[in-house]
């Protein structure tokens, strides 16, 4: 079995289906940075891409002049490659929302956090003054499972590593999805991974609140994140 690349090595998606869709999407994002002004850029994986098709995107985020550079199935390495290959050139957003990691289920929690940190470094190289908002990773699967445990560990490590980096805001969005019986409801995640309208409201309204504060050029209030 081929050893998984560490998450710190940028990798484009090889064309798995033979129709070059990933590269087409990347190129379209490059065009968007040249054609549009954005105050916020969302970049990441399936969760962010799906978010764009929920009601909350149109109601809360579109008015903030956002671009959504989420691509379904992206790994940390793919997002890293995209940032190093132009998706944050030609733009001057005030905030970048970074959300990736759930598809790196073959990596260890430490490798995942190393990868996320590497992405943060790349973003800062491109945009030294930008605020980087990092929503915690969401649980997945209807019932308790090993990937949920891994995600929990990732979030724990992020909590200890990210707060010391200036202008990086880690925000917990994963509370309230696991019900008392340990299950996730399909009313929150229709396939136990991607958010419904209801689920996306629960997870991303706090992100919206935080963005409003950052865009108004203040430091965020201390107790914005719900207490543990």
């Amino acid at each position, binding site marked *: 079995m081929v050893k998984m690349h560490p998450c710190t090595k940028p990798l484009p998606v090889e064309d798995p289906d033979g129709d*070059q869709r990933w590269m087409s999407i990347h190129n379209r994002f490059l065009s968007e940075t040249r054609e549009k002004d954005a105050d916020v850029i969302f970049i990441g994986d399936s969760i962010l891409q799906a978010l764009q098709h929920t009601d909350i995107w149109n109601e809360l985020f579109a008015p903030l002049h956002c671009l959504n550079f989420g691509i379904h199935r992206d790994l940390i390495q793919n997002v890293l490659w995209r940032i190093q290959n132009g998706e944050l050139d030609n733009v001057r957003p005030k905030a970048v929302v970074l959300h990736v990691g759930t598809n790196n289920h073959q990596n260890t929690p430490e490798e995942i956090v190393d990868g996320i940190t590497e992405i943060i470094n790349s973003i800062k190289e491109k945009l030294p003054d930008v605020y980087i908002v990092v929503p915690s990773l969401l649980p997945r699967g209807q019932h308790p499972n090993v990937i949920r445990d891994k995600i929990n560990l990732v979030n724990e490590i992020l909590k200890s590593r990210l707060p010391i980096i200036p202008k990086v805001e880690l925000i917990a969005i994963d509370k309230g999805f696991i019900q008392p019986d340990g299950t996730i409801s399909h009313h929150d995640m229709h*396939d*136990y991974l991607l958010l419904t309208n209801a689920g996306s409201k629960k997870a991303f309204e706090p992100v919206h609140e935080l963005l409003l504060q950052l865009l108004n050029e203040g430091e965020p209030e201390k107790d914005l994140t719900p207490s543990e």
Partner: protein
Amino acid sequence: MAESTHSIANHRCDNSNSRVNDAAAAADDNRLAEEMNNPCVIPARPEDVVGDKRWESMHKRYVTEARTSEPEVVFIGDSIVQQLQFSTIWTEKINSLHCLNFGIGGDRVEYVLWRILNGEFEFNVPIKAVVVFVGTNNTDCTPHEVFEGLLEIVRAVKSKLGGVAIVLPTLLPRGQNPNPYRERNDHVNTFLLDKFENPANAEPGLTENVHVVRIHGGIVQGDQTISHHVMHDYLHLTDSGYAKIFEPVHSKLMQILKN
């Protein structure tokens, strides 16, 4: 009586006398050997690579929905079916026909086949129409293999629901620019149209009450590209994409339900 060409698949499914008694054309040895190598005709489940059992969870939920709901129309297929339920055309038009949506992202022909034969089609009320839409994810299969897999699905639906109306929308093109998978899907569509619209190819027990609905036209533009306004990632439909492309499916269902 000649045995069905899909006798291999027969043994893997729950016993269905109606299939053995199908007046299907006799298979020659070559064709049978071909079928044995065609993954699309052998019901199968995907591997749980991630370890969160999501596919199984969705399947179980659908089995329960089949048992406890009173639908008239059932949609089954891949992500394009699954995401349809979040579109305006679904909430405003299609769903008022009392529908269930059994779409699962990533599904291949053989996974849908397995689901039909393993509980998702155990209903307590008569179903008036079934919409089957799957095949684009079988990127490693030939058009003929995908086509034979879809025939196997039709047989499976008939084994569960008798003479129910079956709607087969044609497979959609994909990718921003011309690529082999557009041609592949097109070939499948040619086989489907030829099989189900050409009276010379009528096959008792297979082709009755099956309606192939053309939905793949008008997507590829004059310059041979597909716009992200229709398919946001050059595979999945935008809301306006769904409204335009699934309208013929809606019309066909209205026709069927009226009769």
